[in-house]
């Protein structure tokens, strides 16, 4: 879990989530300064996440479990 703590983007998202921010708004704000997020459909996060996982050959459910595990450990 220490590796996730060391990722500034993950930690920034954790902070936004704990403050009760809207995830789409959070990513849209990030997209203003980060080219990796630009061009994505940030109003449909589920569809975008699935598409990115498929494109990068990532098992979305497994990765989601890992993220939940990390969050639950906090």
């Amino acid at each position, binding site marked *: 879990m220490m590796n996730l703590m060391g990722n500034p*983007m*993950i930690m920034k998202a954790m902070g936004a989530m704990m403050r009760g921010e809207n995830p789409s708004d959070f990513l849209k704000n990030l997209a203003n300064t980060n080219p990796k997020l630009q061009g994505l459909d940030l109003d449909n996060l589920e569809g*975008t996440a699935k598409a990115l996982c498929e494109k990068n*050959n990532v098992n979305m459910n*497994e990765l989601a479990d890992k993220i939940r595990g990390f*969050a639950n450990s906090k």
Partner: protein
Amino acid sequence: MGDSTFSGGWIFAFLIIAVLFGGGGLGFGGNNAAMAGFATMADVNSAINNQTTQNALGQIALSSQNNNYETAQLISSQNMQMMNQSNSNLINAIQGYNQLNSSVQGGFANVSAQIADLGYKMETCCCGIKTMMLENRLQDVQAALVASQNANAIASQSQYLLSQLGTYTPV
């Protein structure tokens, strides 16, 4: 933080972030390029070791604090003992001084009594001397009186004899 925390699409936001900005190495679905950037097991072990070191440092700091506290307590206790000893010494010194003062006062009283007695004796002695001197003077006067009386007697006898011889006319 439970799974309910991910309601509203946060889990998908994390998935997007993990795929775009995260990395593999921890079983996040394989060591593909999209997962590059996450820590390796070596990084995790290093972090754990670092955490262990931090805990050890914390324990050392706590131990040091305890030692400092115990040292302060010991110093405080020793200071208290020294203060008590100093107070005891001071009390003993005061008592000794009081005893000495009492002894000196007693000595002075004794000396004063002896001086007074000596003064009395001197006065008595002086009185005796004066008396003796007066007695001597009285004896001298008496002797002078006797001598004068003898002289008068001799003069009277001389006048008588001279008158008998007709060479003396009484006034």
